[in-house]
């Protein structure tokens, strides 16, 4: 089975090719079978391959397919590499990916904007799964980069899926271009890595990396961090993620919550040995994580769009993962990546059901009182929110977040721990706000629930995973990756870590159900300014618009005619001018010519006589 590992990425690729080649002429049911089926089978293959890999007891397995490029000493090959880390990632991608595909077969069913859009959707989704699998399975940074850019492309295609609306196109381009900025840093990191170590093969490079000077190691790490920051929507390249919610909700669940945005975490975890060489770079990873964590949590407090709330919460949860990587809690980061994939996919899919039931209404202030009318989405959201908030002991999010915060306290002192706990409180606050306003209070829009098995089954499975994924995951991951040993929940730090989210929930319930009146502050001038500042995502968009976008557009506008061409048009004009001047002497008057000849003759004679 392990030799069939290539089938895992190949099956979704096959699905893509089939849907692509048939140009959307297949019946929708067949499209659904191909779209979800290929990913499902890939998940099964991954499961069996993973089991066999674990039974073999080897630390890694690689499957060489072919040499991609061989030029001089640059010899990247297309090789699949399986170890504990890529196994976890492969499991998440195919498993959660399959559930989301299954959900999407229902969600997109009636979404016929135009012919063939159902097929187009699944073609893009399958291509995405393929690219994401190449990203995590590639044993070479160039193959990783292939997947990296591939998922970026699919993200672009799916954000702009409803391409008739220019705003979606804008969001899609923004996502692609902003992540491309990070990718540029990533590419430069690859160039530098190759120049210094002579190989892009990950294991080889890591093994040779101890020869790097600390300065060089820091440079490489920071360049790679640049790529990770772009893809994972961390400060300062985070601005694309909220806009990316323009895509259909299953896309947000798969790409912008569960898998693609965590690619940066994967990259850094994969290059762990390199980061261990540079305490500086690792420190920056933690700083980036903490900054994103806090900025995104505050921003989520003021959003009205349910998907944007979830987007900001995704940013902040990935911030936790970055912080974990920065403080050396490698396994905890991957653990949180896994649980986050479960509960955030659940939250997005459940919110998708709510949105669908309300005829594409996304403003939480136009919802309300839905908890009885939409029981399946409500309970799913409730479980997901519980895991997001990290309710002690009963949710998966608790175990992973706890592992991060307690490790941070142990290795890096109170700063990261404090920031993380503060953000955990904020998480509880905004999640409670979302739940209270969406599901309780007065009903503002009448829902119609249309829940089929292919939609509630994934919710149910993800709900179960969001609860038991913690107990189950911590054991499995500890065995695979190590470093997740018992944390004592009795120390004062642990108790505070547990209590803060509960306080956040309590405060949230009191404030948002109106028992504590905060209107006075919110409506004051300072409160309003603060709200608008948070609402704009800390004005990053505003800043970038002025620093990068406007100058570039200005340059494009003034230089449309190509200033370099002036050299040649000027040459042309000067020649023309001389020509016209010369033509002036050609009067057509015989006597003028004769006079000129005479003068010319005199000049020549004088010259010849040497008098001039």
């Amino acid at each position: 089975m392990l030799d069939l590992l290539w089938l895992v990425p190949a099956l979704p690729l096959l699905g893509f090719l089939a849907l692509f080649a048939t140009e959307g002429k297949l019946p929708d049911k067949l499209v659904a079978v191909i779209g979800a089926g290929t990913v499902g089978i890939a998940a099964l293959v991954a499961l069996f391959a993973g089991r066999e890999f674990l039974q073999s007891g080897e630390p890694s397995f690689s499957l060489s397919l072919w040499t991609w490029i061989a030029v001089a000493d640059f010899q990247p090959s297309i090789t699949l590499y399986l170890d504990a880390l890529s196994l976890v990632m492969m499991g998440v991608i195919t498993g959660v990916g399959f559930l989301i595909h299954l959900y999407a077969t229902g969600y997109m069913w009636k979404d016929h904007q135009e012919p063939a859009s159902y097929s187009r959707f699944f073609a893009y989704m399958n291509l995405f799964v393929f690219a994401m699998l190449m990203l995590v399975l590639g044993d070479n940074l160039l193959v990783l980069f292939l997947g990296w850019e591939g998922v970026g492309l699919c993200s672009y295609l799916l954000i702009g899926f409803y391409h008739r609306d220019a705003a979606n196109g804008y969001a899609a381009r923004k996502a692609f271009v902003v992540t491309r900025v990070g990718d540029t840093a990533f590419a430069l990191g690859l160039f530098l890595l190759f120049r210094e170590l002579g190989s892009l093969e990950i294991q080889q490079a890591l093994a040779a990396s101890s020869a790097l000077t600390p300065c060089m190691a820091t440079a490489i790490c920071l360049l790679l961090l640049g790529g990770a920051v772009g893809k994972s929507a961390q400060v300062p390249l985070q601005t694309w993620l909220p806009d990316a919610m323009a895509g259909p909700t299953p896309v947000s669940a798969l790409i912008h919550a569960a898998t693609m945005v965590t690619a940066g975490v994967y990259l850094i975890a994969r290059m762990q040995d390199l980061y261990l060489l540079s305490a500086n770079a690792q420190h920056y990873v933690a700083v980036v994580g903490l900054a994103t964590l806090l900025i995104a949590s505050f921003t989520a407090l003021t959003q009205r769009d349910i998907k944007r709330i979830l987007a900001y919460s995704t940013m902040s949860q990935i911030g936790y993962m970055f912080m974990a990587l920065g403080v050396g809690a490698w396994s905890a980061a991957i653990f949180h990546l896994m649980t986050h994939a479960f509960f955030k996919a659940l939250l997005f899919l459940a919110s998708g059901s709510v949105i669908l039931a309300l005829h594409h209404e996304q403003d939480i202030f136009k919802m309300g009182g839905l908890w009885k009318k939409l029981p399946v989405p409500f309970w799913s959201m409730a479980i997901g929110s519980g895991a997001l908030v990290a309710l002690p002991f009963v949710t998966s999010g608790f175990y992973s977040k706890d592992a991060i915060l307690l490790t941070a306290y142990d290795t890096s002192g109170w700063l990261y721990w404090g920031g993380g706990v503060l953000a955990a409180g904020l998480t509880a606050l905004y999640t409670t706000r979302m739940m209270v306003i969406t599901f309780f209070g007065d009903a503002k829009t009448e829902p119609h629930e249309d829940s089929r098995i292919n939609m509630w089954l994934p919710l149910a499975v993800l709900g179960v995973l969001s609860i038991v994924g913690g107990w189950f995951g911590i054991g499995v991951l500890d065995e695979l990756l190590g470093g997740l040993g018992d944390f004592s929940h009795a120390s004062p730090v642990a108790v505070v870590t547990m209590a803060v989210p509960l306080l956040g929930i309590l405060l949230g319930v009191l404030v948002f159900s109106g028992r504590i009146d905060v209107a006075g502050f919110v409506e004051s001038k300072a409160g309003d300014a603060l709200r608008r500042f948070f609402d704009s995502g800390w004005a990053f968009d505003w800043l970038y618009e002025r620093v990068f976008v406007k100058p570039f557009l200005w340059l494009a506008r003034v230089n449309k005619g190509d200033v370099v061409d002036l050299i040649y048009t000027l040459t042309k004009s000067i020649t023309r001018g001389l020509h016209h001047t010369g033509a002036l002497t050609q009067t057509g008057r015989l006597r003028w010519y004769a006079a000129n000849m005479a003068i010319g003759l005199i000049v020549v004679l004088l010259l010849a006589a040497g008098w001039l």
Partner: protein
Amino acid sequence: MAISVPVEHVLYVAALLFLMGLAGVLARRNVMFLLMSLEVMMNAAGLAFIAAGAKWGQPDGQIMFMLILALAAAEVAVALGLVLQLSRRYGTLDVDSASELSG
């Protein structure tokens, strides 16, 4: 036997004649006078040739003069045709009226 006229004197006369002709070409607008001035210039050149031939005792000067005579005859033939055309087309003998070939 012969009164010896210094060759410089003859050349002065020739130069004077040439300048008179040139002045005529530059100053007159009537095409007939223009042609006559041209003739004067050619004859000035001819005179210079004769003088030079006499000075060196060579026949070349006189041969050149005959060549100039032939040239003048040919030129007059063409030029009179042009004069006729000019007067027929423009109804005047003013050369400046035919200044169409300007740049």
